[in-house]
């Protein structure tokens, strides 16, 4: 659960950002993110809140671990992939 999950901001409405996680769009809250963010930025989401703006030069290195995990996500019992899926669930659905 402490893993968090990175995603790309598509648009921002006040303190709520629409964020893309590998094709799944979710709502992430921006109250605690460390720096101002804008569409196109990547953030690290933890339990529905962005806790860090990922510096542009670090995005690929950050995504690598998650892409490795999700590439094998067919393993239903994989704890790390399940945590990543849980973190994506932590972000709200449209209309919230």
């Amino acid at each position, binding site marked *: 659960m*402490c893993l968090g999950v990175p995603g790309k901001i598509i648009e921002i409405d006040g303190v709520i950002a629409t964020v893309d996680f590998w094709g799944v769009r979710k709502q992430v809250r921006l109250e605690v993110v460390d720096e101002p963010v804008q569409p196109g930025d990547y953030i690290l989401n933890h339990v*529905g809140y962005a*806790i860090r703006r990922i510096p542009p030069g670090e995005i690929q290195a950050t995504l*690598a*671990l998650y892409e490795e995990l999700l590439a094998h996500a067919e393993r239903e019992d994989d*704890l790390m992939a399940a*945590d990543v899926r*849980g973190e994506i*669930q932590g972000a709200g659905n449209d209309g919230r």
Partner: protein
Amino acid sequence: MMAGNRGFDELKFRDPVRARALSDTLGRLTTAIGRSPVSIMHVCGSHEQAIARFGLRATLPRDLNVIMGPGCPVCITDVPEVDEGVALARQGVRIATYGDMVKVPGTVMSLADAQAEGARVDVVYSVSQAVEIARQSDEPLVFFATGFETTAVATAAAILGGPPDNFLVLSAHKYIPPVMEIVAEMPATRVEGFLAAGHAATITGWGVFEPFVARHKLPVVVAGFEPLDILAGLVKLVELIGERRAAVENMYPRCVTKEGNRRAQEQLWKVFRPIGGRWRGIAHVPNGNLRLRDEWAHLDARRRFDIDVAGLWDYAPRPLVHECICGDIMAGIKSPTDCALFGKECVPHSPVGACMVSSEGTCKIWHQYGGHPDLAPRSVTGGESGAVCAR
């Protein structure tokens, strides 16, 4: 039946050449220390998941002992705290909490057990989902708030965001830095250095560990969660131990700065104050528990309700609990395989202790990824098939 090492073959290091170089360096540095074992503790369930999932222990030098300490927020939530949630639920109060918390045993039952008897318990992925549930009616909704500082900042933000009056918080949040002090002083643990968790440090910043290092003369290295991040963190830590240099090193600069996330810290400390309290299996940890400040008393479930925990004690305690060694495992004194119940009476679908409940618990991680990962010899490249995940 154990999950065994099924699936390990498809798990690759992103850069096997670099992984082997790091592994070789780690072996050389460990041998140079000339002591066995050199014990390192990490305090993060996600680190243990990555270590076990990617079979990292099989690549580590024989003389290097990497143990998981109190890094599972669900596991260290103490029995009396679970009892508070269970008692409230049985008093008819609706409870919302994170998934794993529902199954964690209290003195006589878990929240899931209470739910089976008719209590209303909602599983949420985020505190904001709990706020939404509260908004849909006028009846009280208690968010049983667990997790370390990374998760506590979300609870703080939800409270500062002006939730409805019927939204209440039962805080069992914990703060990591103080428990490192306690574990460092446990004579049986003999930890020579700490690998600190990247994402908790994203909030606190690595500077938070400087007073600890000065007091205990033990090095701390902040590391990320990729297998290569962890190996690089271990190399740096063993290097510091070999040089007898007590310092903080940040090996996860893409996520962690010295100051951390100040905006999150401001909100965290505006809502919470640190108080002493027990962590399951560890000890009383001064300043280790986060409770709501007086300013938020109107949202504090402990002040709003008369929580009848004592009423639970009329029931018989659950069987086998006295044989559970979760506490020693979280203190880094014992391993899951030292426990007579592990994989037998205690399995994920029927856990005796908290460490088998949570996806971040040492027992559940070892159970899923193959018993004792140390006993699984495999090459650092993950076999000769050689396919590597592209960046």
